[in-house]
């Protein structure tokens, strides 16, 4: 379980707070989607929830980050990394730059955890299978397309079998097929009991994998509830977040007085 209580944060050298009084709980096995307009503080929330802000990048955090009930204040980053991992949106910067093959790149995290070799290999193979990276396992990680590199980055984190995972727009660089693979991998992780927080613009992906959605605007949490409820909430569009296609269509049909004409769920299932 990952918990933020009254989290207020500002970056080093800035007077303004980027997050204000965030209360958020992500339970074990739960996938929570994080939405909000650009520059609302989604990326900052990802950094704070992973402990990297302030542990690694400085700044001032008031309030509490707790993992499995323990406060993470003043923990060194490598200790945090054993509890919570975070995936960023730029695939180029997630590469270690020290591995010669994709396999070694993915094995790096488990290796750093000091696991026995057999375990490292098993976890690496599993992550490769989960994201269907078999065909590029022996390729040079610096010579991948943006989409492939992003999948390798996500596999590298999965191999650490993290209890808590935070993803900041993990599919921004991915085509629809890659996006679907990531969705499947995240669900597999949650089924094993990990708690996941995903910041995404692609609300369609969140609609498919999340049980709960939280929305932030200007650094404050404005909505928190079951996926369907939040996506149907008119306040979501008011802050500049686009609901998933299914929801938009349902709303448009209702507005046009046509909701009786089509059975959306049946048609969607049929197609």
């Amino acid at each position, binding site marked *: 379980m990952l918990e933020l209580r009254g989290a207020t944060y500002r970056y080093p050298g800035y007077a303004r707070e980027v997050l204000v009084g965030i209360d958020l709980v992500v339970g074990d096995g739960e996938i929570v989607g994080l939405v909000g307009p650009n520059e609302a503080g989604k990326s900052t929330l990802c950094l704070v929830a992973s402990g990297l802000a302030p542990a690694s990048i400085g700044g001032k955090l008031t309030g509490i980050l707790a993992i499995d009930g323990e406060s993470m204040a003043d923990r060194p980053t*490598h200790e945090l990394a054993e509890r919570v*991992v975070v995936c960023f949106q730029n695939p180029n910067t997630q590469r270690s730059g020290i591995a010669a093959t994709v396999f070694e790149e993915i094995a790096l995290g488990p290796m750093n955890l000091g696991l026995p070799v057999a375990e490292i290999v098993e976890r690496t193979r599993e992550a490769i299978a989960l994201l269907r990276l078999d065909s590029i396992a022996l390729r040079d990680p610096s010579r991948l397309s943006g989409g492939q590199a992003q999948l390798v980055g996500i596999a590298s*984190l999965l191999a650490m079998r993290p209890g808590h995972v935070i993803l900041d727009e993990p599919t921004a660089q991915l085509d629809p097929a890659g996006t679907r693979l990531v969705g499947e991998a995240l669900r597999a992780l949650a089924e094993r009991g990990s708690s996941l927080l995903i910041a995404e613009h692609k609300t369609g992906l969140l609609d498919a994998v999340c049980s709960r959605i939280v929305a932030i605007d200007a650094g404050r949490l404005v909505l928190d509830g079951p996926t369907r409820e939040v996506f149907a909430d008119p306040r979501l569009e008011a802050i500049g977040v686009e609901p998933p296609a299914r929801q938009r269509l349902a709303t448009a049909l209702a507005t046009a007085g046509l909701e009786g004409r089509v059975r959306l769920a049946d048609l969607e299932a049929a197609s």
Partner: protein
Amino acid sequence: MVERAGVIQAAQRARGLDTEGSVRARLRGIMPLVGPVILSSLTEVEERSLALEVRAFGRPGRRHLLWRIPDSGAQLAARALALLALLAAIVLRATGNLAGLP
């Protein structure tokens, strides 16, 4: 870095930067490349260091990729036998019973 400079140069050429003309034009063409090359390298360093920390890079302690291969029963027996044979040879040699050999 060379690759990055290549992409950045392509982006600037697409905006009409002349890198194929006279020497003067080419020299003038270097300036708009320097900023993005250095800035993007610096921001990448910061992000990359975060990405490494996430993967427990700063964890103290030794790490290696050596496999410990357990000996099978036969291998253990062979190892013990070899040791015994060596000891036997030394004893025989010392007691003069191998004196006939070179």
